[in-house]
């Protein structure tokens, strides 16, 4: 590992100024759990790391909104999110997801902003947040913008963020009436990266599915929202027949990829099984009050 510069900005504006639009070896550093692995294996050799610890206090808050949603600061650690009573009340699926997300040492250090910005399709939170309808707030040299979670990723380890933009916040819309679940499948050790993650959210009114979001990751090149599965759910009864039909649609739509966790064909089969089970589990969990 060659030497690199480690800089400590004291404000968001300073941090953005220290990033470089043209040099991919300049990267922001929040928890560092992913970057450290990449640096250790030589996949990434930084010239400069912009440490965000100095602005952590201003961007780590977690709070329920009066409307029944959530605002989560990008520098909030995964553990603080896991243990937040507001998160548990508004979006319990996030807290449940954390139990099998990496391990406690990583969750203590990793930040939600970095987790999302990393662009790794094997992360658990992006599909969960996408199914919750979350958006991210971004600040950059050109100003601020909001991006829907499902639109953040442009490819394998690629996002639509430019290199002088930082995620400042994750915004979860009101969840009242929504039922959600996340299922992940690891095909080797229990702590392996998932072969598949499926997140679903349902809004059921009078026994019919009024709205739904189905998002998958890990088995696909990037986080993917499965609109055909949602179409199969639309205005149908919230029962096993509907869920099976939606699961078939999900399996037909998902473009899965081969890797050491399984062949594309196997992952497609997993998409079918896990989409159906996730929908059933969301119903079993019941709606957020």
């Amino acid at each position, binding site marked *: 590992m*060659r030497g690199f510069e480690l800089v400590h900005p004291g404000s968001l504006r300073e941090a953005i100024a220290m990033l470089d639009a043209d040099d991919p070896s300049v990267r922001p550093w929040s928890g560092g759990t992913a970057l450290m692995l990449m640096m250790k*294996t030589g996949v990434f050799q930084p010239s400069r790391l912009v440490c965000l610890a100095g602005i952590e206090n201003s961007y780590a808050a977690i709070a329920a909104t009066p409307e029944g949603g959530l605002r989560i600061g990008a520098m909030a650690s995964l553990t603080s999110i896991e243990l937040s009573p507001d998160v548990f009340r508004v979006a319990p699926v996030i807290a449940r997801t954390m139990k099998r997300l990496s391990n406690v040492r990583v969750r203590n250090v990793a930040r939600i902003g970095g987790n999302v910005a990393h662009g790794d399709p094997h992360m658990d939170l992006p599909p969960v947040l996408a199914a919750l309808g979350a958006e991210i707030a971004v600040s950059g040299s050109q100003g601020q913008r909001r991006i829907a979670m499902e639109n953040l990723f442009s490819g394998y380890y690629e996002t639509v963020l430019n290199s002088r933009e930082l995620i400042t916040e994750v915004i979860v819309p009101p969840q009242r009436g929504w039922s959600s679940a996340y299922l992940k499948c690891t*095909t*080797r*050790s229990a*702590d*392996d990266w998932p072969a598949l993650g499926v997140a679903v959210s349902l809004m059921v009114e009078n026994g019919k599915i009024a709205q739904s979001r189905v998002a998958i990751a890990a088995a696909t090149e990037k986080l993917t929202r499965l609109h055909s599965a949602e179409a199969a759910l639309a205005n149908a009864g919230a029962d096993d027949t509907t869920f099976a039909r939606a699961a078939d649609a999900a399996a037909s739509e998902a473009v899965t990829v081969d890797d*050491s966790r399984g062949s594309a064909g*196997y992952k497609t*089969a997993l998409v079918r099984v896990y989409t159906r089970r996730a929908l059933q589990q969301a119903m079993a969990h019941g709606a957020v009050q």
Partner: protein
Amino acid sequence: MTGMRPMPGGQIGRSVPRLEGRQKVTGRADYTHNLVLPGMLHVKIFRSTMPHGRIRSIDTSAAAEMEGVYRVVTGQDIRQIVPEPYYGPAFHDQPVLALDKVRYVGEPVAAVLAADPYVAADAVQLISADYEELEPVFDEVEAVDSSAIVHDVLKPAGTFPDLKHLHGRQNTNVALDYRLRRGDVEAEFAAADHVFEHEFHTQQTMHTPLEPMVSLAEPSDGSLTIYTASQSPSFVRIEIARLLGWPENRVRVKVPHLGGGFGAKLYIKLEALVACLALMVRRPVGLALTMEEQFYTITKHASTFRIKSAVNKDGRITARRCEVFYNGGAYADIGPRVAQKSGFTSPGPYDIENVSIDSYEVYTNRPPAGALRGFGIPQLVWAYESHTDLIARELKIDPIEFRRKNLIREGRPQATGTPLRHAALLGVLDTLANHMEWSKPFERGSGTLRRGRGIAIGFKASIAPTTSVAIVNVYGDGSSSLYISTVDMGQGSDTAMAQIVAETLGIAAESVKVIHPDTDVTPYDMATLGSRSTFHMGHAVKRAAEHARGQLDELARSLGLPEGTNYGPRELFRQKYGMQAGNVVGVGSFIPEYKSPHPETGLTDNVTPFWMIGGTGVEVEVDTETGLVRILRLVNAADLGRPLNPKIVETQLSGAALMQLGFTMFEEMEFDNGQVSNASFADYKIPGIHDVPWTIENHIVETEQPTGPFGAKGVGESGTFGVSPAIASAIHDAVGVRLTKLPLSAEAVFNAIHASAYKD
């Protein structure tokens, strides 16, 4: 016995907490990784990117010019120190750095030395090599007849008489062909009521010790000290002395604690390279591998096993033919011994009149394979126990009954003709059947979750003939130390050996200090491998302690003290010398008897000093929609003679079984044209705490090994034997499909379920 024994008896069979436990959990234990020598240079290795190629040129100029680089060394430079720089325990086939040819992706080609390891690593990136591409061969069966020849000529080391006949063989990748012939299998196949034939495969895996390999060498005037995480310090000294043409006493090898070994750190690994480099630059030199680099250093054999059996109408196996192909990779390491020492047990622990075995160690262009917890046995048990279950199923005989009918009874000959003695095969089988409640109805699950169960049993011979020597030193104040070259790599040998000393001298195990291997101080031991330490070194230690005790008794008599005096060693020394002074040194050594198998028939009446017996029963739950398998219950049973330390024995059994569980369910080195594509813990997964079965039981079968120290024998590997076939059998029981290839991945189970559904 004349002198007083302050704590008579009771040291054996007591679960003494590990002597080093406190040091380890408080971070105070010594590891080679923490050692920094003044003026030390760090080494980083430039490795081959070609599976098989002739070296045209190596360009080190840019690396050599880089600021901070002390020197860059290639294979030709090594010849200045060692003209014939080939090493290895079985064959002298492995160059310190590649010469002429590269034989696998990851083979060391050049080394960079720098005071800063990061500078050395960067300089490695500036080295390039040009190769003439040669045809590679990767599969162990294809390699037997391949036109791609990995080594032009076989070069057995001469250390092992069983390998001498291979000397000078050319144009072959078969590094060893062990054969055994007993009776007439072909005649029996022709006449038999039933004939069964199957083929089984295992994949290449790695030991993944959490402390990667590390060696340091420090030159001094006409001598060399090597600090190394090695399981075989005595062998390192002998091999380095041989390479340098030095007497043994000019090479000193020191080994502190190891962060895991499992066979990865046996014989010689990095030591020859650091020794040559240190002598070249006349400075201390250290090389610490990364986890990734371990995958390019030593692995567990992939294998193919073709097995064919004749069974008569009474369910007795009457003939068996075994053809075993071990994928040895590019260098022999100890592979030829694996093919032979394990090969002769390949028909399994069954009483079979007619047996034919061909066991091959085959060179390929993969990373070398050597010893890994079981020394080739788990590959064999996987095949012969899967075969056993398939036969029982086909003949509609209960698998426990089928085994009971065919297991070798006490005193009956094993395949080699050696009678099986003190081997509780039936005891292990019965223990499993009882604890699995085999005769009771079994809850088989419903819907998409189906349950099944399976058992398997295996056995292993010890490595013979090998020598151990021990010294017990009783000091002037009566305290004592044990000097041995057994390496405690986590298995608990320090504690067990201290218990043997303590029992013999009549003191507490906790008061015995175990001096770690230092070849200037501790005497010879063949190596810490093959579950041999308890038996071999245990005997030597017991003899050394008895020798010391005899001298103390003699001292008491010479002082005119009455028989049974309550004077301890401290008082005896004080009486003799008039002050706290002197010591008594007890020496013991042990080598068991052994008779080499006949070169033509493979037969011998004394192939091993003892047998290890291990079995496993499992209950699984299979998700029929995904193929995911959950192991609900894992029951291990073993015959290990009398347990010296029951708690350590239990952790040995469960540790071995969990390690094998990883090799069974998902561990697999993946290759892309010879390049390992998952050489890290991110992509090569080993079992974690959540993969441990809900219930895990370890049962010690009540027996005694009368020829062992205090009735004990080895146990480090026995827990591995039955795991893979028991799980495959349980899956078969649950969902009706049989897998014949490891690992038993969810996808493989899923595909098999679908294939069988389609067929039906």
